[in-house]
C-alpha cells in the first residue's frame, strides 16, 4: 500500500500548542507539568516546545521513533541532563506545582523524589545488598542495620527479585543476569521511596517472562507512584499505561488516554506510528 508522503508531515505547531493545553479529562491531580519546554544539547534542539500535564498515580507511556527525545524528556524531569556539559533547558517544569528549574531548587532532593531506571541497566560494581542499600545510606534513611536490611528486602520484593537473590545478597551485582540486573536497578530506585518513577525502556533487554514481571510490577506500583515509562513496544504501552504520549522529532505530537491513542488517534502521524507503518 502506498501512502502519500504528506501523510507523515507533522501537524502544525498551532495544532500541537492547542492540544498541549487542556489535559485529557481525569480525576487525578496533576503531578508533573511542562510548559513550553525546550531542551538543547549544545546548539541542537532535542525538545521543542513541550507542554504536557502528567497525572498522579497513573502510568504514562512515552512512545516514538528512536532519537525523538523520549529519554531527553524523562531526564529533564529529574534534571539528570544537568550533568551533561553544554546542555540547557528553557521553559518550565513543575513537579507538585514547584518549578524545578528555578534557582535555589535542591536538585539532590529532587532526584530522590523523582527516581529513575535507566535505559541501560547499570548496577554499581558492589554486592546486591549494597546496591539497594546505597540510596538508603546516603539519604540517611535507615537508622539501624536491621531497619536497613528490612527496607532492602522490601524493595527487592517490590521489584520481584527477592526470591531469586535472597541467598546471594552479598554476591556481586554484576554476576547476575541482565534481567535480574534491571530489576535490581528498579529495586534500587524504589528503596529511597520516590513518588515519581521514570522508567526508560526498563524491559528492552529482557525475555518475555522477565518483561511480564516488570509489567506486573508497574501495574502494582501505580497505586503508590506516578510512573512514566518509555517503551518501543506498542503492545506493552497499550497493556501497562493509562495515558500515552507520542513524540516525534523532539515534539509532542499527541497525548491522550491510551485506548484512544491506540484505537482512534487524532493525528495521522500517531496512527502511522502505532500501527507500525514507520518508526
Amino acid at each position, binding site marked *: 500500500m502506498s501512502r502519500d508522503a504528506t501523510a507523515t508531515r507533522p501537524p502544525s505547531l498551532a495544532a500541537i500548542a492547542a492540544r498541549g493545553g487542556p489535559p485529557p479529562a481525569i480525576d487525578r491531580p496533576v503531578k508533573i507539568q511542562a510548559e513550553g519546554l525546550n531542551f538543547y544539547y549544545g546548539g541542537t534542539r532535542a525538545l521543542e516546545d513541550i507542554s504536557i500535564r502528567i497525572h498522579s498515580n497513573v502510568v504514562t507511556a512515552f512512545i516514538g521513533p528512536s532519537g525523538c527525545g523520549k529519554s531527553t524528556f524523562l531526564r529533564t524531569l529529574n534534571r539528570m541532563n544537568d*550533568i551533561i556539559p553544554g546542555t540547557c533547558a528553557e521553559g518550565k517544569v513543575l513537579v507538585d506545582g514547584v518549578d524545578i528549574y528555578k534557582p535555589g531548587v535542591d536538585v539532590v*532532593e529532587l*532526584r*530522590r523524589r523523582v*527516581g529513575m531506571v535507566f535505559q541501560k541497566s547499570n548496577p554499581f*560494581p558492589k554486592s546486591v545488598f549494597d546496591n539497594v542499600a546505597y540510596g538508603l545510606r*546516603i539519604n540517611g534513611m535507615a537508622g539501624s542495620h536491621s531497619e536497613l536490611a528490612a527496607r532492602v528486602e522490601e524493595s527487592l520484593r517490590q521489584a520481584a527479585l527477592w526470591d531469586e537473590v535472597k541467598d546471594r545478597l552479598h554476591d556481586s551485582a554484576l554476576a547476575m543476569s541482565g534481567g535480574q540486573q534491571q530489576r535490581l536497578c528498579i529495586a534500587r530506585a524504589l528503596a529511597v521511596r520516590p513518588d515519581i518513577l521514570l522508567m526508560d525502556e526498563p524491559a528492552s533487554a529482557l525475555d518475555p517472562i522477565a518483561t511480564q514481571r516488570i509489567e506486573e510490577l508497574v501495574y502494582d506500583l501505580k497505586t503508590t507512584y506516578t510512573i512514566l515509562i518509555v517503551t518501543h513496544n506498542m503492545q506493552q504501552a497499550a497493556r501497562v499505561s493509562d495515558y500515552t504520549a507520542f513524540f516525534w522529532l523532539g515534539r509532542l505530537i499527541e497525548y491522550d488516554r491510551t485506548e484512544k491513542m491506540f484505537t482512534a488517534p487524532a493525528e495521522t502521524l500517531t496512527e502511522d506510528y502505532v500501527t507500525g507503518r514507520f518508526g
Partner: protein
Amino acid sequence: MNATARRRALDLLFQLLAMLILCLALGSLAALVATVWSDGADRLSWDFLTGFPSRRAEDAGIWHALAGSMFVILTTGGLAVPIGVASAIYLEEYGTRSLSARIIEFNITNLAAVPSIIYGLLGLWLFVRVMAMGRSVLAGASTLALLVLPVVILSTREALRAVPSSIRESSYALGATKWQTVWHQVLPVALPGILTGVILALSRAIGETAPLISIGALTFVAFAPDSLWSPFTVLPIQIFNWVSRPQLAFQANAAAAILVLLALLLTMNAAAIWLRDRYQKKLV
C-alpha cells in the same frame, strides 16, 4: 610476488624487527644485572643489610641508607598521595569545565617533565632554607613529594576518567551529592588505577639521587633516621658514594647495594600489581 605474499612477508619482517629490539633491550638489562650480580652477590648478607657504614669496606653495611630510603619514601607517599589525589579529584570531578582548571592541568603536564635537579634546587631554597627544615627527612621527602606530585595527579585523573559515567549517573539519580558519589562510587572503582600510579611514582622517587644531593643529603650520615627531623641518607646516595671510591672492595659494596635497591623496586612494583588485581577481583 603477489600482493598477499608481500603483505605476509612484511608482517613477518616487522615481527622479527620488533623481537630483535625487544631482545636488545632485555639483553642489555640482563647483562647489567648479571655484572652487578657477579660483582656484588658475595657481599649480600644479613650483616650487610643491618650494618652501618665503616671505613673498612668488608665491615660496611647499608642499614642507615636502607632505613633512610624507606622512611623518606613513606613520608613522600604520605605527603604526595593525599595532596595529589585530592587535586586530581578537584580537577576531574569539580573543576573540569573552568578555564583555570584547564590552565592548571596544562601546567601539571609540563611539570611532570621538569628535570629532577630543578626540584632539588627548589627544595633547597623552599624547604631547607625558607621553611628551615634543614637537611632532614622531612625536607627530602617534601622535595621528592613535589617531584612525584604531577605524576600522581595525572595518573589519578586517568583512573577517575576511566570510571564509567553510568556509575556517576545512577548515583546522582538516587539523590547522592557530588561528594557522596565521588567517595562511595567513583573512588572505589578508580582505586586500583590510582594505586598503580602512586606506586610507580614512588618507585621513581626511590631511585632519585640528584634532588636529594642538591638539598645536601650527601653528607656523611652513619645512623638510621629516627624522626622526621633527623639527617638522612638514601640507597642511591650511598651507592654513589661507594662508586666514587677507588678501592675495589667498595665497588663490590656498591654493586651489592644496587641489588638491594633493585629488590626494593621489584617488591614495590609487585605490590602494585598485587593490589590492583586484588581490587579488580573484588569489583567484578
